């Protein structure tokens, strides 16, 4: 089955999330390392402009407050260029960064085992990365099927909640999407 085949290829839970720096806009970059101390959802997807309402990114945009409530920052990643992302994000009114895995094309998607050589695009692959930079959940959907958000929310709920941290992070996440708060002291020392 296709689903199982994919699931075995993307980086699995327990793996350290490979660091990367990608452009979010023509003059802004986002590094995964800068988000240490915060939960991060990486949503790889094949391409901007899929011809449906409520495509995967638009759906996540609607659910963003729920992700923030769990102290998680969302990053969309595809091989589209920054100008394409900018137009797409404006059109869909997206309030989270779309990163451009453009040069070398799909380089980050490859690191995560989420590149489709036959299509030259990223898979529909989801990763939940914890405060220490470790992948805690991953899922690869058949490329034609938008995986929705239920798996992400279940994975976030399964993570231990640090007292008092969630609300602060949610506030930080909603005001400055790409900026990272300082690492939480409570989580120090718990790194695997």
């Amino acid at each position: 089955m296709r689903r199982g085949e994919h699931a075995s290829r993307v980086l699995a839970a327990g793996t350290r999330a490979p660091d990367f720096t990608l452009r979010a806009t023509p003059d802004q970059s986002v590094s995964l390392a800068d988000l240490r101390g915060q939960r991060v959802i990486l949503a790889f997807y094949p391409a901007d402009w899929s011809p449906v309402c409520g495509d995967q990114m638009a759906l996540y945009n609607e659910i963003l407050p729920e992700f923030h409530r769990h102290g998680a920052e969302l990053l969309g990643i595809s091989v589209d260029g920054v100008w394409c992302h900018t137009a797409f994000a404006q059109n869909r009114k997206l309030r989270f960064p779309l990163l451009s895995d453009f040069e070398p094309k799909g380089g980050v998607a490859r690191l995560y085992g989420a590149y489709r050589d036959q299509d030259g695009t990223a898979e529909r692959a989801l990763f939940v990365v914890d405060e220490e930079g470790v992948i805690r959940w991953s899922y690869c959907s058949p490329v034609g099927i938008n995986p929705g958000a239920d798996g992400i929310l279940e994975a976030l709920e399964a993570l231990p909640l640090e007292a008092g941290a969630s609300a602060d992070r949610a506030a930080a996440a909603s005001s400055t999407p790409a900026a990272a708060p300082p690492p939480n002291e409570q989580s120090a020392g718990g790194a695997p």
Partner: protein
Amino acid sequence: MSRGRLSPPVGEGDHAQGPADAPVTLVEYGDFECPHCGRAHPILKRVQRRLGDRLRLVFRHFPLGEIHPHAVHAAEAAEAAGAEGKFWEMHDVIFEHQAALDDRSLVRHAESLGVDGARVARALETSEFEERVRADFMSGVRSGVNGTPTFFISGQRFDGAWGEEELVAALEEEARAHR
């Protein structure tokens, strides 16, 4: 973890057409301002006619308010009409008038059904049904809704094409399995 299971299952609080003991239940998560849902509307009417009493149809709200500015109020207006027993009538009128979904039009649509327009206007102003609509939306998120419309057949997300023939074939198969 199984993806795409309807949660919570269809219950008392749902808007349903057709017998509660029908062999197959089709749930639509829909957005009144979504053109694809608008396209699905007449298809579902024909599917209902073809399946007859063997089908129960349920509608749950999944307004994509960020891209469809009128979708949340349209859903709340349908609930307001529903409070007077006219949910499905309002549901139909809204889908048949997707180009006119501002508050004033929603009130006018309700009035065309004999629903108290002032009551609907007040419900929109006070967000009386906001939580009801949000609860539907969140149930959709938890069930793996991945766009609009998303369909569930007997509680399992239906990822196939939703043309009339495809839906009838899938529903007939399910109805036969549960006869």
